[in-house]
């Protein structure tokens, strides 16, 4: 589940994911109870690759300690030893709702800013290219 990404892009991707991983985990549990390995698979299927798969466990522990999720043991569909499944609590549902609102607000603001400044940058770059072209011609 650890994809090779270009260094700079990979680092930014990892930093961004770190900030919202808790909300992503809560969203995945809201769909259905899951165990550790299933989270990493679901994240990868959504295009969110973790640098280290095991980094979900400290986060799951923190969420469980905070009462946002609870756990139980049950046999897994793939067989083998029983797995520790996580499910959402009421507090977790509320946290997820709040996280969604916060993320949409934040992502919208960043997208808006990047779109505006992107248009300005393109205009400046065009102007620079034109003026450079003029001076060199």
């Amino acid at each position, binding site marked *: *589940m*650890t994809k090779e990404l270009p260094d700079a892009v990979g680092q930014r991707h990892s930093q961004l994911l770190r900030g919202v991983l808790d909300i992503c985990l809560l969203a995945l549990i809201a769909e259905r109870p899951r*165990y*550790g*390995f299933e989270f990493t698979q679901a994240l990868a299927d959504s295009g969110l690759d973790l*640098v*280290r*798969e*095991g*980094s979900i*466990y*400290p*986060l799951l*522990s*923190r969420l469980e*300690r905070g009462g946002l999720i609870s756990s139980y043991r049950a046999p*897994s569909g*793939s067989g*083998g*030893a029983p*797995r*520790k499944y996580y499910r959402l609590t009421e507090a977790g549902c509320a946290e997820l709702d709040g996280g969604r609102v916060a993320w949409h607000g934040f992502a919208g603001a960043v997208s808006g800013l990047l779109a505006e400044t992107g248009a300005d940058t393109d205009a400046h770059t065009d102007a620079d290219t034109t003026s450079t072209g003029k001076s060199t011609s």
Partner: protein
Amino acid sequence: MTNERILAVCRSNWEYRGIDDASVREMLEELSAHLEDAEAAGRTPQDVVGDDVKAFAAAWARARAPLSRRIARMAAMALFVVGAVLLVRHLVTWSLTLSVGADDLAFWAVIATFTVVWEIRRGGLGLGRSWLVALAVGLPVAILTRVLGGDEILFSLPLWVAPLLLLPGLPYAVADGRARKSAPAEVN
């Protein structure tokens, strides 16, 4: 690094960080299952825990239980061990007061230091190895201390000190014992 080695490193790290036995077992079972699933999916153990296994284990331990709770447990368990040792000595000598000399202090200080260092590096010492440490390390140091410093008594301990020291660690010891009994199978 093999799955077994990763589990061994994590176990020793969690034990020395004062994570309770039931939690250590649960975390090991969870990690072991993940490593197996990852292996079946064609991924390496490093994809799961990264290159620094100790850092991974430490992060999980910190998230699992706050430092204050882990320190409280470690302190209570240390007092529990001292209390148990004193109680055994009361029973063996069948007396209400224990005389403590420099050789006694040296004996227990050396064993405690050795045990802590060992458990930080390698995990649980176990009963058999504890006896070996007592005989191979503690006894020679105690004899040497007695030869060099004499057999003067430093202080005496009444019987009530032992149960008093046992008290704070008793709930932890009972919980650990129950967890050991209810554990389905040993991981690693």
